[in-house]
């Protein structure tokens, strides 16, 4: 049995009432977690963001770290910690730091990471930023720690897109990877589905029903300007970007049936990617741009297939069950996440593409729309919990899950953005 515990980011919530869209709840314990102590940053009592708490929540959510109590210590990046004392507390690593308000109103944030097993200084960082970027700085600290201790790139400073429905109102949001700092990109009285980040992280393609039919927009995140790229006769849906950002693969019914087409990201005349007499939809590129995974019911029931990105023969990928949809491929090309109907309920599955072995990694029953983190270590997905639509992240083994729980309304259609430059 997994132990269950809840982490409430009370400090964060208290300091950020207007932006606190989410609460992170971590449940489950992994087997190979690195015990890390994160001391309160000197000066953060008087600062608008509690850096240490944000870093701790980030690291715990990743599933690869376990927090060791570091309360009631007074350390900063210049301190030489008593490593034997931290070893005794069970920590392998220690994060120290400080936050200082500068004369020009910006904040100077400094941090240092210690390997307390070896008594080694693993390096430090400093950032001078405006108050609005303090959360981003905390996520960058998390990325630094994560990369030093695991060897993998962290994804804490990436962004996610998702859709909320509150009463009759739909909103497309862009938020930090921990769900905080959400900003509305679009508000609509009609549904919005299938947001998809461009590889450059500056645009999102999505499907809007505002003109009483599904059409595809490409939306510039910074400016809010958007462009209608597909409004052909019938339905226009399921946009996804090629890794070079030049092409959108989409589903159009302009010639009858739901079929796959390629479209220049700037618009123009669509080119048919495949032709079948069945439903073909939900295309997604592999990171190398060579293949496209998609869903088709050409065999009588929806299954996931793979074909060359230039079109051609499709080979079936899923063989278990009669309803397998919503494929997402990890950036390292090793994993396929998808939704499978098992005994009448919809569950997130992860397939090891090398062996074809699949695992259901949730205990929920209405999972939807998985999307990998850009370092291929986590998957974000929508599900129903306690009668509400909510977003969860999970490690690929399903052992560590965090709920990004909104304060109100239904939260759905997550898409994890690319690594920030």
């Amino acid at each position: 049995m997994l132990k269950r515990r809840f982490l409430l980011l009370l400090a964060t919530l208290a300091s950020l009432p207007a932006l606190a869209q989410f609460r992170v709840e971590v449940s489950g314990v992994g087997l190979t977690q690195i015990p890390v102590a994160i001391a309160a940053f000197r000066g953060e009592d008087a600062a608008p963001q509690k850096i240490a708490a944000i870093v701790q929540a980030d690291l715990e959510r990743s599933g690869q770290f376990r927090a060791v109590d570091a309360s009631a210590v007074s350390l900063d990046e210049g301190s030489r910690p008593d490593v034997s004392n931290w070893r005794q507390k069970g920590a392998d690593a220690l994060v120290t730091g400080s936050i200082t308000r500068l004369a020009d109103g910006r904040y100077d944030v400094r941090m240092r990471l210690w390997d307390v097993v070896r008594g080694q200084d693993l390096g430090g960082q400093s950032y001078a930023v405006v108050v609005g970027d303090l959360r981003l700085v905390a996520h960058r600290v998390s990325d630094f720690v994560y990369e030093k201790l695991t060897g993998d790139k962290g994804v804490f400073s990436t962004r996610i897109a998702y859709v909320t429905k509150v009463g009759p109102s739909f909103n497309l949001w862009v938020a930090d990877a921990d769900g905080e700092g959400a900003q509305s990109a679009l508000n609509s009285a009609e549904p919005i589905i299938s947001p998809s980040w461009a590889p450059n992280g500056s645009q999102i393609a999505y499907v809007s029903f505002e003109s009483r039919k599904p059409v595809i927009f490409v939306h510039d995140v910074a400016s809010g300007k958007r462009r209608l790229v597909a409004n052909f006769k019938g339905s226009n849906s399921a946009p996804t970007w090629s890794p070079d950002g030049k092409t959108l693969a989409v589903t159009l019914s302009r010639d009858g049936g739901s079929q796959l087409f390629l479209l220049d990201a700037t618009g123009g005349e669509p080119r048919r990617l495949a032709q079948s007499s069945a439903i073909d939809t939900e295309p997604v590129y592999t990171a190398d741009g060579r293949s496209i995974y998609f869903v088709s019911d050409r065999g009588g029931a929806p299954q996931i297939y793979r074909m060359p990105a230039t079109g051609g023969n499709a080979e079936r990928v899923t063989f278990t069950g009669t309803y397998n949809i919503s494929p997402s491929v990890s950036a390292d090309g090793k994993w396929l996440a998808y939704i499978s109907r098992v005994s009448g309920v919809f569950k997130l599955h992860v397939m090891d593409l090398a062996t074809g072995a699949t695992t259901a990694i949730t205990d929920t029953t209405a999972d939807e729309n998985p999307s990998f983190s850009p370092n291929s270590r986590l998957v974000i997905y929508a599900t129903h919990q306690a009668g509400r639509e909510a977003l969860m992240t999970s490690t690929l083994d399903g052992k560590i899950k965090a709920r990004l729980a909104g304060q109100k309304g239904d939260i759905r259609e997550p898409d994890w953005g690319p690594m920030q430059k």
Partner: protein
Amino acid sequence: MNRLIWAAAIAILLSACGSAVKLDDVPVEDKAGTSVSKTDGKDGAGVGQRAVTGVALDNAQSTAAMMATNRTVYFDYDSFAIRPEFQSVIEAHAKFIKADKSRKVAIEGHTDERGGREYNLALGQKRAEAVRRAMGVLGVAESQIEAVSFGKEKPAVLGSTEAAMEKNRRAEISYR
């Protein structure tokens, strides 16, 4: 006789919809599509200020319940077959549309809430196209009909009961 009643009912429905609903400009016959233009759509911006023009379902619901029933075709679970009892609904509308070549109609396909949003969009499209084909067989020009799908995004009835889901597996004939 029956035919006259239908025609009258549809005429009332049409006038009710036509006057109450301001539709966004969606050209039905535009197969090529003007994919990129500088003027299309309103840009999104800050929070909540840019509510796009919605076409409230309430407008349709405020017309007589009979009218609503008479332009909806219901489907069995996982099925796109038009049940015999709805053939007369389709025939009545087909006759009405054929009578005036300037009439445009959208067939809007819907599904129940089970399963993924995009796959349900494709399933709803199949339902809409089944009704479109049935109208085509009755001689309605393709240029007058557009089959579109809302998937599971616009349920007619909220709730997860079988009764609610039956009401949501449907295609609505919608004049534009």
